[in-house]
């Protein structure tokens, strides 16, 4: 492997139970050679960041369809910074209106994905980020 294996956390913060997207993305990342730590449903920002820390994860991916994305992304980002994980990638997907995507950018969450986005685009985004970080 040219680049060391990547560890990615996939989690569903908040209360909705729609884990189809999270699971499909997790599978695609595994197929792309990544090590995916799947945290499952109903995660709090605290439990997600704690897992990222223990796993020394490179990437945190959140899947949120409950409409509570602003609350959760903001909190996860805060906790990442506080715990020395500010240099890791935070991204995610769900039903996130364009206006909120802009607000997320201001928080330093550059890109989130939505329904219909190609699964390969997610894999590529994470890979590209990781390569640029390794060099």
């Amino acid at each position: 492997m040219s680049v060391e294996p990547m560890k990615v956390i996939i989690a569903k913060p908040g209360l909705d139970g729609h884990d189809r997207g999270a699971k499909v993305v997790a599978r695609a990342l595994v197929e792309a050679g990544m090590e995916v730590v799947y945290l499952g449903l109903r995660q709090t920002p605290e439990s997600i960041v704690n897992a990222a820390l223990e796993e020394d994860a490179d990437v945190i991916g959140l899947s949120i369809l409950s409409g509570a994305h602003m609350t959760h992304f903001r909190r996860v980002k805060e906790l990442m910074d506080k715990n020395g994980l500010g240099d890791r990638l935070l991204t995610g997907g769900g039903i996130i209106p364009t206006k909120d995507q802009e607000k997320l950018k201001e928080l330093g969450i550059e890109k989130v994905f939505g329904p219909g986005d190609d699964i390969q685009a997610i894999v590529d985004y994470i890979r590209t980020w990781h390569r640029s970080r390794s060099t």
Partner: protein
Amino acid sequence: MKRPVVKTADKRNWEKKYCSPDLRNADFSSISGRPLEPLYTREDLSGFDVDTELGYPGEYPYTRGIHPSMYRGKLWTMRQFAGMGTPQQSNERYKFLLAKGQTGLSVAFDNPTLYGWDSDHALSAGEVGKTGVAVDSTADMERLFREIPLDQVSTSMTINAPAAWIFAMFLANAEKQNVSFDMLRGTLQNDILKEYIAQKEWIFPPEPHLRLITDLMAFCADHVPQWNTISISGYHIREAGSTAAQELAFTLADGFAYVEHALRAGLEIDDFAPRLSFFFNSHLDFFEEIAKLRAARRIWARHMKEKYKAKDPRSWLCRFHVQTAGCSLTAQQPKINIIRTALEALAGVLGGCQSLHTNSMDEALALPSEKAVEIALRTQQVIAFESGVANVIDPLGGSYFIEKLTCELEEEAERYFQKIDELGGVVKAIEQGFFQREITRAAYEYQMALSRKKKILVGVNEFINEDEHLEIPILEIDESVERDQIRRLQELRQKRDNQAVRSRLDALKKAAAGTENLIPRLLDCARVYATLGEISAALINVFGEYQEQPFY
């Protein structure tokens, strides 16, 4: 009119011509990956007995519909699922929908409510009123249905894990409105098995949930006879990524599991089976969806009559609500969603649904706005009143393709039933992750088919509009909803009779540890305004909580 009989040799001739090299380079399988023939002929129906497989509408095995007159007698109920924000806001939306010609109400609850948590639960933060209405107590139920006569509209409530105590609050409110229980009409989703399989909103392990469902069936048989105690749902199974055949098989298997649980608890089949109803998805693959709905009626009727020995024909009926597929909506070029939804709705109608929800075009972006909801409702009205499809019963019956597809889906479902039996039944199969794995695999395969353009989604992987600008208004839930809801909840805890709340919750716990029917106890709690979360906590104390299993 007499014409010469066509000889079978003609098909061979046609086949030769068909296999010319000028076929389009495209994937001709269904959206579920089902291989399809280019043409269906009577050869595909050899051995097909019209009398036993089809019968007539309103007659066993009900393939052609559950009523003799179907939509000539009564159109399907146009029932738009709605709910958001505070109970007051939802109440206004319901009155709006009734004024626009909607004929039944359908309540969407927010996530904390679906989990049985109060709005001030730590994990509710950011979720209150977001994807449905927040209901914390009977007081919220009173606000939700203010000035809506419960004896005149039918009310569907999409709630599962805490369904029994949400229903108790609904009953307590009916008492306040002076509507007697036997006048109440409506449906409680109350389908916990599909929660473990697909939707993942549970509280306890399966057994106590099943007990509460059986308790509710018994209670309603005696006191709320017009109420559909359960809506056995394939909708969410499909949304989680299953194929059409999996949706059909897993949903009906869940139905059989409820029947068996109630029978084991000593109920008589014909006392509860007529109040079981179903809820299916209508996805984009037009014919496969129609066949799925027709197959559902036939399978259910056969099993109820032949396996479970139900005598009352009403027990044989697979009555169902249909909702168009939320997962087929795209955030890209959202107006196309109107067309997708229209096709899906048409499939639901041709499949013989009893009620229908059409999704709004903006649902891949946010909660539906009022304008979008109105177009969705109008779509149903066009199908009902302009297209002419409601004039003839089961108009596709007898089509080689539709009948063959219906038979194939039935056979596929039977194979799944056998597999589930081998695993020890639905609950054991859930614990072993059988359904979850099957669905995840199907979801992944579909996603890959899109990624490789084996399947085309307009505006998503083909016919993309670069620099697309969103032109539809988006509904946003104000952050003040959460604060308002929490404030009201805390006021309620101040002013209610807390002594009574405590003693009734204690009585509930005691009853839960025994075997008595819990619905009267839950009603007692609701009458004194015990909150949703307090009742959940009391029951968790006895029943324990269920842990997610990460099947992949």
